[in-house]
Each structure stands twice: as structure tokens, then as C-alpha cells.
């Protein structure tokens, strides 16, 4: 990929905006369309673009497969952790009202934010891991 100057420059310019847009979709999730799943896919797409231009070896220096294998279950743990926290605070599983003792609607915001963060981590790392597996075949 040494020779594709235009591709390299354009993708370097694009990737930060891709990640920024992913964050927008992520944090806009509790006000409008969007959320952890969509944001996770966009994050993964940014990394996949990087891998397509600069090669699998380079991307695996940034995010080694072993790290991804930990991140996939970690996202599930963040999600379930919110549920456990609401249990400890005396509510039902995933009852976000419990997360803020003064204003239940703040609790709802916080709960959705944390749960969506867990979804983002799992979706992005799963997507990337699937890409690694396919791209690494036959090597």
C-alpha cells in the first residue's frame, strides 16, 4: 500500500471524523436515533478502514487480538454491572431509577449512558475480531 498516496492521505483525514461521528451517535443515543450498537459499528468501521489501507500487522500493533478478546466480555460485564448495581441499590435488575437517589430521571440518563457504553465496547470489539479472523485466514 506504499504507493496509494491519495488513499493514505484521505483515510488519515477521514478516520478522526469517523470516530468523532461514532461518539456523536453514541452520546446522542438517549435523545434521538443512535446508540451503542450503531456507534460500535462506526468505531469498528474506522479501524477496518485503517487496516485496509495500512495492513493487518499495523492495526494489530494498535489493538492486539488478545486485547479484543478481553474487551468483548468486558462490554457485557459493564452492561450486567449496571444491573448488579441496581440490585445492590435495592431495585429490580436494570432499574435505572435507583442510580440517582434524588432525581429518577437523572438515574435513567446515567443508566442508559453506562449500558450503551457497554454495548459500544462489545459491538466494536466483536466486529473488529470478526474482521481479524477473516483477514487473517491463510496466513
Amino acid at each position, binding site marked *: 500500500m506504499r504507493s496509494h498516496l491519495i488513499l493514505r492521505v484521505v483515510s488519515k483525514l477521514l478516520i478522526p471524523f469517523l470516530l468523532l461521528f461514532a461518539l456523536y451517535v453514541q452520546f446522542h443515543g438517549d435523545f434521538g436515533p443512535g446508540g451503542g450498537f450503531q456507534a460500535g459499528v462506526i468505531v469498528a468501521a474506522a479501524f477496518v478502514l485503517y487496516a485496509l489501507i495500512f495492513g493487518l500487522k499495523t492495526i494489530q500493533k494498535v489493538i492486539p487480538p488478545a486485547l479484543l478478546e478481553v474487551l*468483548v466480555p468486558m462490554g*457485557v*460485564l459493564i452492561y450486567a454491572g449496571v444491573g*448488579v448495581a441496581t440490585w445492590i441499590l435495592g*431495585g*429490580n*435488575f436494570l432499574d435505572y431509577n435507583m442510580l440517582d437517589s434524588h432525581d429518577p430521571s437523572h438515574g435513567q440518563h446515567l443508566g442508559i449512558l453506562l449500558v450503551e457504553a457497554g454495548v459500544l465496547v462489545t459491538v466494536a470489539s466483536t466486529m473488529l475480531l470478526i474482521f481479524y479472523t477473516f483477514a487473517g485466514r491463510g496466513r
Partner: protein
Amino acid sequence: MLDQFPAIIVAAPLIASAICAIVRHERTCWLIALLVSFLCFFGSASMLGQIQDYGTISYQMGGWAPPAGIEYRVDLLAIYLLILVSFIATAVLVYGRQSVSAEIKDGIRGWYYTMYLLCLCGLMGIIITGDAFNAFVFMEISSLSMYTLIALGKDRRALAAAYQYLILGTIGATMYVIGIGLLYTITGTLNLVDLGERLPPLLDTSAAIAGMAFIVVGLSLKIALFPLHLWLPNAYAFAPTVTTAFIAATATKVSIYLLIRYLYSVFGFAFSVEQTPIPELVLVLSVLAIFAGSLTAIFQENVKRMLAYSSVAQIGYITLGIAIANATGLTGSLVHIFNHAVMKGALFMLIGGIALQIGTVRISDMAGLGKQMPLTMFGFVLGGFSLLGVPGTVGFVSKWYLAVGALENGWWWLVVLLMLSSLLVLVYMGRVIEVAFFRERPVGAPVLKDPPKAMIITSWVFILACIYLGFDTSFTVGVAEQAVSVLVGER
């Protein structure tokens, strides 16, 4: 703590599977899986008394009230299945540590337990949820992890079997979700109880009929009801033994549970039985399943595959109760769900012990095993009696209820067919027993012993349960009858 059990028995396996995926140390993962499965069993068992005393438990997930929020609903039918699945999951884990070490490659055994726990989470979720779409999500969780559980075996053919199951299982799940979509468009609700209340006036619409057809066919694929059973024999035969013992005893049963729920609670007993051809259709297919499954089992050389075809036949017995469609027949159906799980679990466990000792599961390699592995083969004989339906075993209890149910409908010919089908069981189980007990071990073959203690003891707990539950039916028949009286009474 007690009022949180409905959520705990689903969330705990999920959390534990994520932890296993991070830890990935074989021994630790096994221990975590065992503890969590036992927690699920303990939770389910402690809810039973509460339900019998105070009625159905309704749990609001996330604090949102049904029908808008997701409701976890534990009634007698659900708790019956929850106890079965969590008990089998625990027992198979106690049994399975050596078997997993022998049959799963080093380095991925941690993942194996991760998938096992995810599968448990999915199965418990399908049973407990009172939300049609939530059931679909859990169905996918359990199915996807099940495909992995099958494919992780050392046998390369397991990959093809898992792929076949994946394609057919996905078609089944798609049909189910299309059916849910159709019902949602006409009722605007996904809560099963709410659906059951809103559907009756709409049942003559083509959307409701089409939705019902999609759901019944989709679930039949998951159940492996003849002739949609093609994925089952290979999946059971080539999967690691622990997988086979676990899914043979639980997965198809949970789908049957869902089908019963839809036919009797959502669409209603009166509509499903009296105004649709479903009972007649299921009757024909069940009888075909019983005979085709048993006849094919006779010609199998691989014992696991033989037992898999026998499962196709046994599923036929279970669905037969749905076709008989009276309280006695349906009780027989529910009792057979439990009994078949116990006896097939036992038989697959014993076969797993044989596979560990001799390395194959071909009938011709089992010559003379009766003398060298007496505990295993004697257990196999008792399990065979149970499958046959000899009085004093669980097989007799469920067949008795099915036969009485058939007679209440005036179907005496069905009773004759039931007895004839038992003869076929005698033929295929007899083949194995004949080879093991009445043929000499080839000269020069290594001397064998019974498998390790943990495997023998758990298998025998199941074998003894086959006999105990054949005499003391207060749990199986007792709970099933109460559950059926609710189902048949619901209109």
C-alpha cells in the same frame, strides 16, 4: 433476595460467562460454571414452593410495568421446565470435567464453559420471559452458543453438523420472528399474556392465521419434529458428549415448552384444538416420527447416532400429547419432557464414559464390554428398560398417561401403535446389549475399566432417578397436572 430470583437465574449465567471468557483457565471456569448452574437450580427450586403457595410470580425487568415493559413470568409450567434445565445443566457439569478434557482441544476449554453458560442463560431466558420478542432474543443466544458447543469437538464432522444446524435453526428462528411480527401488527403488543387477551376477537383475520402458521412451523424446526428433524442426528452424534448430554436433555424441550405456550395460552386451547387442523397434523407427524425415528435407529452403527434417532422418536411421544389435546394426554406430554430428559441424559452420559475408555462409539467396538465395564453397561440396560417403558421406570409413567389420554379420545388404535413402537426400542437397544454382554472381547484388545468416579456416579444418579421417578411421581406428574389444569382452563 428471594424476589430477585427470576432475574438472577438469567443474569447470573450471563455474567459468569463473561467472567469465564476473561479468565479462560479450565479448572476455574468449570468451577464458576458449576456454582452458577447450581445457583440457578437452587433459585428455581426455591421459587417452586412460592408459586404453589402464592401463585404466578411476575417480575418487572428494569422496573417497567407490563405490557409495555418486559415481564418475567414464572408460573407452574415455567418453573417445571426451569428446574429441569438448571438441574440437567448442573449434573452434566459435575459429570463432564474429564469428558471435556478428553474431547475438547487444550486452550479452548475456557471458551467451551463460556458457551455452556451462555446457552444456559438463553434456555432459562426463553422459559421465564413473558415477552414474545424477548423469547426470540434468548432463542438466538441459546442457539448460537449451541452451534459453537457442537462445533468445538475434535471430530471434524462436528463442524458440518453445526453448520447444518445453524442454517436450519436460523430458518426456524426467522419464521418465529415473522410470526411475532404479524401478531404485533394486529395487536400492538408483545407481552404473551396481553397477546392472549387481545387475540381472540382477531383470530379470524388472515394475519393471525399466518402468524400462527409461521410460529408453529418455526418452532417445529427447533423441536426437530419429523420431518424437520434433519439437523438433529448429526448434531447429536458428532458433538462432544457433554454437549450432547446437555442439549439432548434441554434444547428441544424448551422449544416444545414454547410451542405449548403459544398453542394453549396465546392462541387459546379452544381455538388451537377445535378450529385449526394442528392437532390432526401433529398427530400424523408424531406417529411418523416415532416409527421413522425408531426404525432408522435400528440400522445405526454409531451408538450416539442411534440414540439421536431415538430422540427423534421420543420427541414424537412428547408432541403426541399435544395432538391428543386432553388433560391426560397433555400431562403425559409434560411428564415425558422431564422423563425423556432424565433417561436420555443418563444414556448419553454412559456413552460418554465408553467413548472416554475405548475411544469410539461404534457398536462393533463394544463387544464384551459387559464384563469389563459392568457399572456402565448395567446402567445402559436399565436406561434401555426406561426407554422401552417397562413398568417401574419413568418411561412407563409417561406412556401410561399418553395411552390413557388416547383412550379418552377413543383412539384405541393409537394405543396399539404405542405398544408396537416399544418393540422397536427393544430391537435397537437390544442390539447394543447383545453385543456388550453376549460377545467375547476380541483377543488382544486392551483390558478396560469403568470410567472415572465422577462420571459413573452422575450417570447412575440419573439412572436411579429413572427408577425413582417411575415410582414416586409426586413431582413430575403432580406439577404437570397442576400446570395442565391452568393451560386447559385458560380460554
